[in-house]
């Protein structure tokens, strides 16, 4: 197991008190596998994955848990030791390369910078390697001399990939890497990325709010909601037998995943709870069509299949709930306060 996140908690300090952005999440990333983290905006996924590099805004603090990378709890490392890991062992692909690249530096120079400063390469070695990296991601080497704004969105993301792989990391965190691109380009970039992942045996944590991306490239999926992991497991199992109401709802919201072509879209009404004072018990209760009295209590993590768990009191009834969920009427008028 390359990465094990155990009960990770991250709080944001605000004048009104701590906001529990990430409230005890656990998941594993096996060597060479792609783990997708899916959830809506504000569920804590970006905060969680950025914390894996220990680069967080000053208002965010670790409030508990462990992050064990290759046998070491990186939360306990000194800043210097942690910095050694950055980019060399764990790299990051940002959502929007346009903002993530220095606009007044040539793209090639930005790759060379990382190679020389963190990879101890000479100028010639670094230049040669940057050409290789570009070739790997399908970009012409003469474009190394261009500035970020001269690339199209898809090509810029390829630059980000090249940059991330520069020092041969073992773990790559991709934070919504294709969200900002249009659908056709998304596929192309994902294909390139998947090829490289297989070729180099990279372990990947891929954050997205788009379930079809998860279906396309991931081996495992972790579903987050309101700072908690509500379901996780092998991709095929979670998508064919979703066992948490939220996952089931997501499934309904993305019809292209199902075989039924004439299934109606039924969005999940309402919005996520405020994390300053999270509600007691199950956090999805207010929007869940299947909520019952016991849901006011903290839900257990229930095993619903090999390596597949859901955080729900009614997880054992998942099959029946999935059936009921096919009717869009079930999802309307659900929201309670």
């Amino acid at each position, binding site marked *: 197991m390359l990465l094990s996140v155990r009960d990770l908690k991250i709080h944001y300090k605000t004048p009104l008190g701590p906001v529990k952005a990430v409230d005890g999440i656990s998941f594993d990333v096996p060597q060479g596998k792609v783990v997708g983290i899916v959830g809506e905006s504000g569920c804590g996924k970006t905060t969680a994955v*950025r914390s894996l*590099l220990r*680069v967080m805004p000053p208002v965010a603090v670790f409030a508990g848990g462990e992050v064990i990378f290759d046998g070491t709890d990186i939360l306990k490392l000194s800043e210097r030791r942690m*910095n*050694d*890991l*950055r*980019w*060399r062992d764990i*790299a*990051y692909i*940002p959502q*929007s390369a346009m*903002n*993530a*690249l*220095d*606009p*007044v*530096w040539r793209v090639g120079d930005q790759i060379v*910078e*990382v190679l020389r*400063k*963190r990879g101890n390469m000479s100028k010639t070695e670094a230049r040669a390697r940057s050409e290789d990296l570009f070739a790997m991601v399908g970009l012409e080497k003469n474009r190394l001399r*261009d*500035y970020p*704004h*001269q690339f*199209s969105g898809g090509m810029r993301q390829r630059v980000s990939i090249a940059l991330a792989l520069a020092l041969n990391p073992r773990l790559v965190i991709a934070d919504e890497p294709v969200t900002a691109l249009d659908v056709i380009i998304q596929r192309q970039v994902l294909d390139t990325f998947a090829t490289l992942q297989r070729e180099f045996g990279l372990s990947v944590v891929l954050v997205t709010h788009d379930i079809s991306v998860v279906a396309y490239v991931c081996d495992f999926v972790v579903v987050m909601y309101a700072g908690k992991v509500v379901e996780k497991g092998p991709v095929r199992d979670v998508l064919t037998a979703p066992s948490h109401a939220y996952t089931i709802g997501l499934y309904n919201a993305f019809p292209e995943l199902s075989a039924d072509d004439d299934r109606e879209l039924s969005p999940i009404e309402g919005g996520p709870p405020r994390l300053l004072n999270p509600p007691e018990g199950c956090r999805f209760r207010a929007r869940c069509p299947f909520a019952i009295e016991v849901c006011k209590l903290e839900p257990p993590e229930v095993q619903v299949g090999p390596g597949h768990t859901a955080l729900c009191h009614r997880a054992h009834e998942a099959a029946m709930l999935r059936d009921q969920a096919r009717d869009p009427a079930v999802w309307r008028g659900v929201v309670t306060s």
Partner: protein
Amino acid sequence: MRYVLSRLFYSILVLWIVGTILFFMFRLMPGSPLAAFIDQTSTLEQQQALIARFGLDKSLFQQYLAFLGNLLQGDLGQSFFHRRPVMDVVLEALPNTVILTLSGLIVAYVFGVLAGAYLAWRRGTLVEGIGIPIALATRAAPEFWLGMVLLAFFSFYLGWFPAGGANTVGMEYSSDWARIFTLDFLRHLTLPMLTLAIYLQGLPLLLMRSNMIEILQEEFVTMGKMKGLSSRTIVLNHAARNAMLPVVTAFALGVGSAIGGNVVVETVFSWPGIGRLLVNAVSASDYPLAQGAFLIITAVLIGMNFIADISYRLLDPRIRLAASN
């Protein structure tokens, strides 16, 4: 390149229009009757010659053409007071102003940029809380008053620096260059230059600070941390480089406006530059000289505006190279 040429053409156009405005201002305003353009104490022949040269017996429009024609030949007229061509008098004074302005600005901007970047880095601390009001105070203080305070304390009281002028009276020099590269000149330059620097540093300081704060929030700064780059690398090589762009433009604009604003500093320190020349000329009703000095100052201002315009385009690759999507 085409852009540069079109801006150049435009700047020349503005210069011409402003020159025209000046011409009419000096001719038509009350208190400057036409006849005053000719020194009453010169001889009749001289007066006739001047009338002919400037076409003062002709219509206003023809005078204007004569003015333009003379201007293009570099003839700005004859100074009443100095009884020499205006161009000569102005060119004597110009280097002093240029040196004073440039040295003051360079000191101001180097300090301002460093201090501004530092304040941005120390955001939310006491240093910032004190630093900003102090910077604002220097911008709120009249330049000449700063000069007066420095003069009173460092010159009259401590005696460290001379009380005015650019060189000690009575010294002789082989050439203008020789005059400038002396310790004597430097001693004379120090106080006025410091005055300028203190007054001017507020702008680059606040500008740099505000730019840096914005830039430090940008994603590519966070990315730098993720890559494991040192703070020094991130701040200097990336953040500061981005933040500097508007500062460079401001510097060019600053030269243009300081040349005109120098008037007061030159007066306080009796610095023999164009500003003081203008003030004295206006006081003495030496219209050709006043007009000539004004024109030169204007030319510098418009020229620097032009340079500021194109420098921003050249420095920012996003503007220099069109996106090739």
